[in-house]
């Protein structure tokens, strides 16, 4: 798992809030923004993610968890449409946007964690990311959402989300500008959240 991700115990949305979040997300999903690349790669694959615009973020609901963090976090919701196999990537640091160095990910929808698609982490073993089609990635580990726990992601490692079902997949995410090691240290010493 480390240095790619870590399960988090001691914090989560209540079932009631999770259901309300899911209702909110599904009701507004049509107005979510698209994070995607236009061009398919040489195998016909494309990159396709969906994010909640900041003005549609259900802040009060997310506060249930968000206000417990002892560090600055940004609220985000990210999702996938059915049968999505997101491009392997490292999150970029974009000026003017909330930092996405690490994040704490809370699976929201679907409720059945048996069907919740994995988040996979990779190492690039050959090639160059700029020549994605010819680069080689080796799977290192995958998040098992059946444990029904939030997860700290190291977004500076190669990763992707997979949703191999005929349903949506949504996560509430609290993103931070801290490096993975710093965040893990806070978690290990009970300083990450109240």
């Amino acid at each position, binding site marked *: 798992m480390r240095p790619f991700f870590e399960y988090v115990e001691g914090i989560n949305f209540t079932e009631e809030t999770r259901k309300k979040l899911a209702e909110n997300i599904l009701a507004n*999903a*049509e*107005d*979510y923004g*698209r994070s*995607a690349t*236009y061009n*398919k790669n*040489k*195998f*016909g*694959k*494309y990159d*396709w993610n*969906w994010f909640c615009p900041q003005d549609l973020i259900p802040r009060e609901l997310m506060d249930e968890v968000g206000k417990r963090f002892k560090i600055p976090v940004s609220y985000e919701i990210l999702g996938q*449409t*059915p*049968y999505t*196999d997101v491009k392997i990537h490292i999150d970029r640091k974009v000026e003017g946007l909330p930092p996405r160095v690490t994040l704490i990910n809370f699976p929201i929808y679907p409720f059945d964690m048996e069907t919740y698609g994995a988040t996979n982490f990779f190492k690039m073993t050959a090639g160059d990311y700029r020549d994605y089609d010819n680069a080689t990635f080796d799977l290192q580990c995958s998040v098992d959402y059946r444990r029904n726990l939030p997860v700290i992601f190291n977004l500076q490692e190669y990763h992707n989300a997979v949703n191999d079902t*005929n349903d*949506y997949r949504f996560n509430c995410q609290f993103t931070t500008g801290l490096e993975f090691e710093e965040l893990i240290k806070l978690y290990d010493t009970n300083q990450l959240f109240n």
Partner: protein
Amino acid sequence: MIDYAHILQNGIEISSSGTTGTPKIVLRTPDNLKACNDVAVDAQQLVRSSKVLTVTRMTHAGGLLAQTLPAYSIGAEFKVQQFNAFTFLKDFTNYTHTFLAPAQMTALMNTKGFVDCNLTGKRILGGSDCVTWEMIEAFVSKGAIVQPNWGMSEIGPIAINIEFDSMDKVQYVKERCPFEYSIMGGTYYCDWKIKDHELYVKGPTSIYDDWFATGDIVALDMGRRMYYLGRKETK
């Protein structure tokens, strides 16, 4: 003269377009034709009082299977004639349904008569190639109900489509369409799944029992509407 009753009773062999490989003869059994007809009737709200004008060649699925045979099967009136861009709009006046390929739509849009034509309430099923947003907007702005439709020789003429009955709906979906890709639809008349971004389909309208790999690369928007991104490249 086509013997529609004979076709319904005995099935028919039609030639596939070759989109998914070498053109081949596809046998549609009577049961399969019934499934295709049921879908076509339902999808296009064909009723006994409907009047279908077929201007696509009958060897084409859009000509025979999309509207003509379904119309015959429910006792609706239909007429088959050759497409003529200069007379079509006048000919269509007394009809309720037609199927147009994109090239035919473009030809009509370029006629003088199109500027002032009134297509209020008329249903136009579009397919066999990508129906562009420009085409959808052009016909819906004239009052038509435009149904871009996706189908294949193997899965049936009507499998996935969407109905545009107002410019507001066109605008709504267009705003959500990724990169102006071609819309396939949001109503599904077959089982479907996506594997490695390729569309697989299955159902009673298919000539196969198992999943059929279409070779079409597709993606969904948040409204579960499907878009065509292109053909899968063969390695």
